[in-house]
């Protein structure tokens, strides 16, 4: 692949570097249908297809340089802020990390004063079971209510106008290591929620609750017998390795499925045409793969389910017997793309294992899976069998030294969601370039007792910088341009009809990039590192606004928000080594920033 460096931002302090394809792929306007845009932002992904595209074009490549802060709002919290703000009926809603406060801000008043706040009072002990900082990825609006999840496993419905609690339902148990960090998706009259805690021996599930009453309508487990997984006669996986009775039991050592992980803490998409939801399952547990020989279904794969009944339609396992913590919870963008002269109904999925999957969403067939980052842990995906080809010598073995495993456990991309522009036809992927070494066993001593730890150390892969923003052509299946950042790009992206892509960096820069060329046109330094999801909306005054939460944390930023020691390279499950310089360039503190043209 020929690539050439063509330019840099004007800001010399930034490490970013732009790479464009030698024979640049040309933009191609999208021919598929799009959900109409009313200028609001009622769920983190904006539309049910998870495209995160705003049709607003007041702010564009020509005038974005004049973008200014319109107003701000402090959350007063110092943990990682991963949520997307919502905008509904001229009100903005913000969900914070633990203690999971919900704030309503009145957009019709100057400076957007607070209308009300709602405190769900989550349990303090839930902080101890969250693996990777006490984050929350946002809320969803439907039917006059704001729905979101608390770290201690409650789903709450709050009256959007008054801020009063309509119902709350407990879905899991912190004493079993369960927590909930994901943003729910509301489809028709159902709130869809999944659990986190693959590091703590949970059994993963996705649950549908009734929007009116909060009652559980169905729950689908991700391990165990078919009846628990809601697998029945209508289950037709594309590949033979996913067919058979009770694979959620048989692909594990005896009883290990009961603590097999496979939670669901990422994103769900919905296709009204087929009435199917699509979502990925998390890593199998325990983390140490030697303790769970077998394919470990239905972990690290994708389910298509009927939203009304939860019944599984198909499944595909991206990373069978996952050895590297390659959760499959990343977003699925629903698109109709011309492939080999035919319009195919597809899912576009930048997977943690490093391949960009284009799948037929009606059957679960993998149409293509090209690498969008540096990969040494696998050779590729066999498109005939659908199987991921592992590299034997890169498998972690207890007590052995294995070097240069790429991608590292956070993958080529983690939870941070990408966006799509129908004007270019490209997908804008915020992600990372991380490899790791698994070193000798290390004797540790905790509270008087000797333990043994494997030493995981993460570091930047080839090219040196740890972060990437990649524009990807899902038809030609290749990168169009790519920006580099010193640290992983752990924020989401949003794309607008002004041909802009917005994203944030861990240093705290919020940037606007030309969607066609990758040139940085504007940037603003916020108070803390950005791991939130930017949005674009139309205010009551008719103006376009861009909003994002700043506030470093999460797995990558725990070294700042959790005050971990930068000299312990194995802290934060090995991530601390990769982010050791982060405390030098940013500090913690949650703040909402809203931008507009003067």
């Amino acid at each position, binding site marked *: 692949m020929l690539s050439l460096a063509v330019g840099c931002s004007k800001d010399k302090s930034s490490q970013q570097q732009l790479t464009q394809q030698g024979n640049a792929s040309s933009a191609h306007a999208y021919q598929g249908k799009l959900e109409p845009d009313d200028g609001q932002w009622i769920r983190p992904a904006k539309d049910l297809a998870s495209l995160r595209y705003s049709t607003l074009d007041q702010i564009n490549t020509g005038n974005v340089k004049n973008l200014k802060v319109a107003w701000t709002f402090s959350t007063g919290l110092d943990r990682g802020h991963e949520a997307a703000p919502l905008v509904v009926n001229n009100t903005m809603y913000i969900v914070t990390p633990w203690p999971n406060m919900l704030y309503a801000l009145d957009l019709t008043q100057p400076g957007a004063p607070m209308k009300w706040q709602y405190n769900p009072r989550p349990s303090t002990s839930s902080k101890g079971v969250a*693996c990777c900082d006490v984050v929350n990825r946002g809320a969803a609006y439907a039917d006059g209510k704001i729905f979101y999840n608390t770290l201690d496993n409650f789903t709450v419905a709050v009256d959007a106008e008054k801020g009063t609690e309509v119902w709350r339902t407990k879905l899991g148990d912190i004493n079993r290591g369960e927590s909930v960090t994901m943003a729910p998706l509301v489809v028709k009259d159902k709130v869809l929620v999944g659990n986190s805690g693959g*590091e*703590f*021996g949970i059994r993963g599930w996705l649950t549908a609750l009734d929007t009116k009453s909060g009652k559980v309508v169905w729950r689908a487990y991700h391990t165990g017998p078919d009846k628990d997984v809601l697998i029945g006669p209508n289950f037709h996986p594309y590949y033979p390795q996913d067919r058979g009775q009770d694979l959620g039991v048989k692909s594990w*050592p*005896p*009883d*290990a499925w*009961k*603590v097999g992980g496979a939670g669901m803490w990422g994103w769900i998409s919905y296709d009204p045409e087929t009435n199917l939801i699509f979502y990925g399952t998390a890593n199998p547990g*325990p*983390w*140490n793969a*030697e*303790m*769970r020989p077998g394919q470990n279904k239905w972990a690290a794969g994708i389910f298509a389910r009927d939203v009304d009944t939860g019944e599984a339609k198909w499944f595909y396992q991206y990373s069978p017997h996952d050895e590297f913590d390659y959760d499959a919870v990343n977003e699925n963008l629903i698109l109709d793309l011309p492939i080999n002269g035919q319009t195919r109904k597809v899912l576009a999925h930048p997977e943690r294992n490093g391949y960009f999957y284009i799948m037929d969403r009606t059957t679960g067939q993998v149409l293509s899976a090209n690498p969008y980052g540096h990969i040494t842990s696998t050779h590729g995906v066999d498109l005939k069998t659908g199987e991921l080809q592992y590299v034997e010598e890169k498998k972690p073995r*207890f*007590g*052995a030294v294995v070097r240069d495993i790429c991608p590292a456990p956070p993958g080529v991309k983690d939870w941070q969601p990408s966006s799509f522009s129908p004007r270019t036809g490209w997908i804008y992927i915020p992600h990372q370039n991380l490899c790791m070494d698994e070193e*000798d*066993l*290390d*004797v*540790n*001593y*905790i*509270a*008087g*007792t*000797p*333990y*043994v*730890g*494997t030493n995981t150390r993460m570091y930047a892969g080839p090219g040196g910088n740890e972060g990437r923003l990649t524009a990807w052509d899902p038809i030609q299946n290749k990168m169009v341009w790519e920006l580099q950042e010193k640290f992983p790009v752990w924020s989401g992206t949003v794309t607008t009809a002004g041909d802009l892509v917005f994203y944030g960096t861990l240093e705290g820069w919020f940037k606007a990039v030309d969607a066609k060329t990758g040139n940085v046109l504007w940037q603003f330094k916020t108070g803390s590192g950005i791991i939130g999801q930017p949005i674009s909306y139309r205010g009551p005054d008719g103006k376009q606004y861009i909003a994002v939460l700043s506030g470093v944390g999460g797995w990558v930023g725990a070294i700042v928000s959790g005050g*971990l*020691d930068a*000299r*312990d390279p194995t*802290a934060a*499950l090995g991530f601390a080594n990769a982010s050791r310089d982060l405390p030098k360039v940013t500090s913690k503190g949650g703040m909402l920033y809203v931008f507009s043209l003067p």
Partner: protein
Amino acid sequence: MSSLFRSGIFFFVFSLPAFAATLKVCADPDNLPYSDKAGAGFENRLAHVIGSGLHEQVQFVWARPRRGFVRERMNKGECDVLMSVPVGMRGVLVTKPYLRSSYVFVTRADRDLDISSFDDPQLKKLKIGVQTLDDEYAPPAQALGKRGMLTNIVGYEPFGKVPGKIVSDVANGKLDTAVVWGPLAGFYARRSRKKLRLTPVQPDHEGALPFAYDLAVGVAKNKPELVGRINQVLAEKHRAISLLLTSFGIPQLNSREVMEARR
């Protein structure tokens, strides 16, 4: 004036020995049998044995030795020594070992299970208590997991409010057995009303995974001169130390290194 001045000098010289070298010992304020604030742990007692051998005054610095503790506190000069660290632990200097102990199977004597190996077929039917820690491997959990006995495991926190619970749950029948680090098992087994049996895990390692560890005094990196001096005290006082450990019920294995250190 001058006499006052002289008496001042005199006072200063006289009281010097009290100020002279202090041995700062980091210890958990509430984690028996290791240490507690009342001085009732074997690490408290061992610290005084070593302090007197060094002719230094022991000063306890209360700290919970959790993850990152060595880097964040010990090597920043808060203390000079940790009383019991496994040989091979990174981040600290270590003396010669004074004790070799092992993970042990704890069972009730009246059940006569006689388990000493993870390959014992009886284990598959038993409820087994193990202390676990999220991203670290408790050696027994690793061994049980590899044999497909993950769901036999009942997890216990290593630093709960009641660290002896894993042992008392064997005594009261909630567990069939537990695989527990020797010093902890020995101390709480002694206090148990039901008679308990402790059997060291055999063999004492499995591939790269040890079940028995040599314990030594951990010394802060900025105090390298302390290592040789403490080694000398450990050799001189080995009988007293061994008796002290026995009085806490700590299972002691023979170790070539420990024996050599005593010479």
